[in-house]
């Protein structure tokens, strides 16, 4: 084994590696860079919203036009912010990075089932992300029809949209390979004794996520192909007859339906919401069990709720489409399913909350982020209910309320969970510890400013401010009373950006810090902590592949001399 490792060059060991840990890190680093970039786009937009048509500091010279953000470019930034954060940032980090690195370790597998496909999946993602970046340099700028790319606007948009579609096809293919890999790994490579009901919740969430990606993404690929045909071959799949653009009737054959895109798009994009949130639940569950030093409350309830959540996520998508006039009976169906899907979410949140009850909680950085996640996700989820009811949605649709709602789910929700995961597993991935003070500063400032950014959005949205206004509502009668909030949100956003410096500095100094090499610094029970070194061995993960005898969260077992009992400890 070791002789083989010596022969590896830098290129095969770190760049074109087939080791799931290296690929996980590649995913992690790439997606973190994209998250930062996507966030930067938003910070530019927020300047325009707070101080309309004044030159933008620092980056104004790149934008041109005297540093003032042109409205077309504002659209580009908005579309690319959404695309980048979701498809290039959060999903690759939650699923590609954490899934790749920790699923095999937690189930006691020596690697993923298909290591080469795994590498191919990363490189597809990388190429897809490069294509997305190329979009910024084509004439007309990057895609500017929103991250949802609704036709007919997207059909007649500038070249950037074509680039976006090619990028998406690559990303979809990448996530397809990744999801097949995770599924086969979990089904086939669980070590001896690791039965389904002994799987850590994190593995369950990755498993369900993989299923959602497997079945929900291909229809978007189909839709992407159809939109490419519309744009390149002149078909009219999404173009209704007699469409008039800039006073001229288009010469297309017509007969298509913009609604078709919305159906195919949301068939993916609603399950995608659960792709974003499920891994977050998994990470949070691991951290809460570990830091309350007691078993997670309602393991089976959690598992069943998550499976049910995964299934239900396929039949709620048209709640994004209430105002398309698709018929009231269909609307009633989707309202019902939308209300039903909130039940498993509440079960999960309740189980996590009850797990805190009576625990001797350790307030370390990962735990703080996990504790922050629960109310933040709660706000995100509860504010979603009015949007799921058609009558309320007609008022709130396309306002800042919607933006506030889903950002609460994804930003202080999922992204907090991802930070928690990074702080929690950093010692495992590097053998070093992160700085607790910097971590806590990062948490508290992020918490304050996240709310500073997103809470006012509810106020603006309820006042009826449309989410698509380039000037932040300056010329919009509804907005007059709530206009001052633009500045609050923008300043919070920039301060939130500054707060991330704590994270970046923490990562850098911790990486250069000295190795503690502790195998299990958190005294955790799952296999990745108890049976491998930190970081785990290059190929093969384990010196001896462990067998499993117990459930994943056996903390404070009465007869044990320690307050944690590893899964691999014989009964």
């Amino acid at each position: 084994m070791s002789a083989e490792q010596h022969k590896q060059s830098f290129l095969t060991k770190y760049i074109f590696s087939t080791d799931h840990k290296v690929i996980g890190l590649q995913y992690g680093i790439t997606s973190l860079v994209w998250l930062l970039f996507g966030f930067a786009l938003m910070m530019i937009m927020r300047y325009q919203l707070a101080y309309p048509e004044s030159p933008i500091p620092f980056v104004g010279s790149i934008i041109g036009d005297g540093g003032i953000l042109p409205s077309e470019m504002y659209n580009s930034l908005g579309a690319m912010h959404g695309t980048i954060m979701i498809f290039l940032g959060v999903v690759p980090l939650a699923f590609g990075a954490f899934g790749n690195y920790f699923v095999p370790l937690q189930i006691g597998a020596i690697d993923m089932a298909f290591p080469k496909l795994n590498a191919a999946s990363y490189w597809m993602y990388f190429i897809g992300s490069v294509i997305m970046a190329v979009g910024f340099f084509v004439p007309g700028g990057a895609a500017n029809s929103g991250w949802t790319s609704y036709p007919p606007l997207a059909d007649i948009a500038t070249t950037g949209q074509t680039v976006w579609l090619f990028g998406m096809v690559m990303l979809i293919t990448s996530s397809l390979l990744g999801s097949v890999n995770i599924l086969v790994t979990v089904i086939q490579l669980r070590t001896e004794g690791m039965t389904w009901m002994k799987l850590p919740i994190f593995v369950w969430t990755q498993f369900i996520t993989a299923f959602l990606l497997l079945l929900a993404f291909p229809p978007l690929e189909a839709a992407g192909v159809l939109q490419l045909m519309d744009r390149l071959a002149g078909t009219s799949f999404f173009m209704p007859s007699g469409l008039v653009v800039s006073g001229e009737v288009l010469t297309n054959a017509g007969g298509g339906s913009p609604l078709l895109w919305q159906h195919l798009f949301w068939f993916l994009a609603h399950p995608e919401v659960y792709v974003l949130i499920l891994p977050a639940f998994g990470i949070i569950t691991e951290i809460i069990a570990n830091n309350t030093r007691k078993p997670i409350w309602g393991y089976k309830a959690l598992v069943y709720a998550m499976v049910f959540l995964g299934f239900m996520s396929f039949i709620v998508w048209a709640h994004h489409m209430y105002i398309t006039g698709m018929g009231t009976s269909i609307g009633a169906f989707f309202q019902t399913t939308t209300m039903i899907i909130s039940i498993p979410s509440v079960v999960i949140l309740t189980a996590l909350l009850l797990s805190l009850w009576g625990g001797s909680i350790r307030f370390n950085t990962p735990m703080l982020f996990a504790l922050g996640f629960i109310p933040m996700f709660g706000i995100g989820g509860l504010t979603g209910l009015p949007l799921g009811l058609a009558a309320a949605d007609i008022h709130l649709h396309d306002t800042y309320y919607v933006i506030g709602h889903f950002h609460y789910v994804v930003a202080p929700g999922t992204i907090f969970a991802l930070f928690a995961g990074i702080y929690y597993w950093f010692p495992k991935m590097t053998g070093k510890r992160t700085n607790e003070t910097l971590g806590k500063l990062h948490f508290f400032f992020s918490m304050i400013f996240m709310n500073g950014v997103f809470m006012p959005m509810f106020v603006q949205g309820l006042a009826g401010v449309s989410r698509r206004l380039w000037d932040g509502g300056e010329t919009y009668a509804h907005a007059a009373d709530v206009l001052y909030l633009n500045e609050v949100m923008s300043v919070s956003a920039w301060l939130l950006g500054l707060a991330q410096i704590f994270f970046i500095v923490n990562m850098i100094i911790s990486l250069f810090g000295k190795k503690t090499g502790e195998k299990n610094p958190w005294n955790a029970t799952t296999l990745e902590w108890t049976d491998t070194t930190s970081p785990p061995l290059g190929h093969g993960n384990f010196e001896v592949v462990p067998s499993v005898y117990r459930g994943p969260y056996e903390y404070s077992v009465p007869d044990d001399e320690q307050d944690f009992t590893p899964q691999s400890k014989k009964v």
Partner: protein
Amino acid sequence: MSELTPEQVKHHIKTYVLVFVALAFLTIVTVAISYLDLGVVGGVVLALIVASIKGSLVACYFMHLIDEKVTIYWTLIATVVAFLILIFVPLSTMLAQAKI
């Protein structure tokens, strides 16, 4: 399927030939039906029934679904459910819209 004896394989081969004959026959049938004037609904229903029979023959015998493992059955059940949702929910919104 990896524990087949040579006799079983030979038996399988006979099945393959039979299935092939059935598929070829059904292809001719479906083309013939299309020349009859059954109206849109009748034509669609019949053609889909024949196609489904052909599809099931391929899946059951060539792809050996007739005796496959539970894991694969579960996967495919989930897929079929998702597929039916994907086909029929957009269709129902279209039909509901047409009624308005």
